């Protein structure tokens, strides 16, 4: 970093006449416009900051900044309520979709989205998101799905996969005892008022890019007035999954991602089930794995 002496000899100060060194430039260039600070209080390896970043970028790219209003649920991601530069209403656990409904009905030209986790949306507030979807409310509900109550330290949610070890399913989620995971996107996609449903992920760069396209489509769906839009994002939670930080993406792919399969579940009225996505994705995945095993990818 270059420094220079002030004319009056007050000692070296930063020279602001020249561009900062590359490291500082990278931080500045990489931080989304709608983020007030690059700091966050979530765990290393958490996928939620990535998901937040992606929808903030989508809002900016679509030029919707000055219409955007967030309604936050209660979970780890609530920590972003102070650092995302978007008007925000904090809702109670599970109640964000109805609060978003009230906001949107009073401000029909705004772009209203909820920010909820699987514990918030699929456990505590399942009826809220379903009713809001069935009403065809012109809002976008965002689900950050990590299959675990992260904020309490790793407990089973309604999206936890069978066999998943959590602090209250210590021997793994057992269907006999704990029931089956809810594929929330499939529930929502079947409702008439729903225009767009997608399930993304942030476990690798390709998934992040694909998820951003999903957010763009969802917000465009909202501004077009077509109906309710929904984006689920699978996020890593190495802390709540009890795996090393660097294993988060792999663990996501092996467990959560095998059940809550990535893809678009409803586009232009056409519904695709998670099962169908699975049938499409898995052979492709196996093919890639086979190519890897055979000595490299030819892409």
């Amino acid at each position: 970093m270059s420094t220079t002496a002030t004319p009056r000899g007050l000692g070296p100060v930063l020279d602001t006449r020249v561009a900062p060194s590359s490291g500082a430039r990278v931080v500045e260039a990489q931080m989304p416009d709608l983020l007030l600070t690059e700091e966050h209080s979530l765990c290393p390896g958490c996928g939620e900051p990535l998901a937040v970043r992606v929808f903030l970028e989508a809002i900016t790219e679509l030029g919707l900044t000055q219409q955007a209003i967030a309604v936050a649920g209660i979970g780890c991601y609530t920590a972003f309520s102070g650092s995302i530069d978007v008007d925000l209403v904090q809702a109670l656990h599970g109640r964000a979709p109805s609060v978003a409904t009230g906001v949107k009905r009073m401000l029909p030209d705004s772009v209203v989205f909820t920010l909820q986790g699987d514990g918030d949306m699929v456990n505590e507030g399942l009826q809220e998101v379903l009713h809001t979807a069935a009403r065809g409310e012109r809002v976008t509900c965002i689900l950050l799905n990590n299959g675990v109550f992260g904020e309490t330290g790793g407990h089973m949610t309604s999206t936890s996969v069978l066999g998943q070890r959590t602090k209250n399913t210590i021997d793994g989620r057992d269907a006999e005892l704990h029931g089956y995971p809810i594929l929330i996107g499939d529930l929502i996609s079947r409702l008439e008022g729903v225009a767009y449903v997608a399930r993304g992920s942030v476990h690798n760069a390709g998934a992040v890019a694909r998820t951003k396209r999903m957010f763009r489509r969802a917000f465009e769906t909202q501004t077009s007035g077509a109906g309710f839009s929904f984006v689920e994002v699978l996020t890593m939670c190495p802390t709540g999954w009890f795996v090393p930080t660097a294993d988060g993406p792999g663990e996501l792919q092996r467990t959560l991602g095998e059940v809550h399969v990535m893809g678009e579940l409803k586009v232009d009225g056409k519904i695709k089930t998670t099962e169908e996505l699975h049938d499409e994705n898995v052979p492709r995945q196996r093919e890639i794995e086979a190519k890897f095993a055979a000595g490299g990818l030819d892409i």
Partner: protein
Amino acid sequence: MTATTSSERVLMEGSEAIVRAAITAGCRFFAGYPMTPFTEVLEHSARLLPDVGGVCMNAESELEAVGMAWGAAATGARAATGSTGQGLSLMQESLSELTLAEVPLVVFNMSRSQGDYFQATRGGGHGDYRHIVLAPQDVREAIELTQLAFHLADKWRNPVLVYGDYLLAHTQEAVAIEARDFGALPDKEWAVDGSRSGSGWSATVTPLGVGKTGQRQFGQEGKAQYIATKLPLLEREVRFETGHVDDAETVIVAFGTPAKFVKYAIDQLRADGHRIGYVRPITLWPFPYDAVHAAAANARVVGSFEVSTGQLVDDVRIAVAGQAPVEHLGGVSTDGSGFGVGRLLDVDEVATRILALHRGEPQPPIPGYEEFTYELAAHQQEATP
């Protein structure tokens, strides 16, 4: 009749008058879930709000009703929700947190009895909070207090509850509905509208004490302390009515529609020469402790008439502070459905009870109690010490 405002008196049931009063006060959003005797408030809202460009949501549950109204109020719009006490029980988590979030929501309780007094004044929800609670005695007063409710909610950024009942909601009175000016209010610069997003000064409406990076941070403790220092100021809004208290040997305290029966009975007893007076709290919180205390200073006995097992009587005892004995005069009384007006709410019944207290005679039994008196089983009999 389509116009909301009317300077001519029109025969109108209480629920319609309340909705028209709310609209006249600028209410543009209502969300509710049907439940007797609140249902007509929802019906009239659904019918009348669209005419003025407003929105009425048929919420899928009380939880969603209060959530929707929360969101609407967070945009700065005047918004309301409501139910019976039962439905309000479902809303309590929100009704508590709304106070911390400083969302100026108006809430109607068309109750099934006066047994929601504790729910209204002590808070049925968690944590440290108070709502201003207005208790109209009739349709005419309900119009004024509904309009006042929206003003007070905005003035203090605190929820305001209007406590009515079956009788209020379903009684027709000849009333005029005109806009009232309660004074200037500050701009709602705290409200969200999206326009400040991306400016570095976006708005946050939250019970959690979180401010945007660079803005004031309350923190959880700070926000609770901030509210704690606001609550004493709300006590300035105390409202009450007194009658014949100056020389009263017996003072009766009553609120809501039963208070109108009490006042009528006392006027008649006065005409017969009995020195009896009354205090009618119009705000149940803040409670008119000083007014009740002053009225009791020279009284022989104080009675609390309420259609419940005795909840208001607690506040009356706090207010009287031992200056005179305090008796609970009322009891549980509804129609067969459990929603409506019972046999106790009758001027002769009320007058008989007040006169018995005045004369130091035992209270007559509550109609129905003799048939349904709880009887101790043999194994429950305790030896008398």
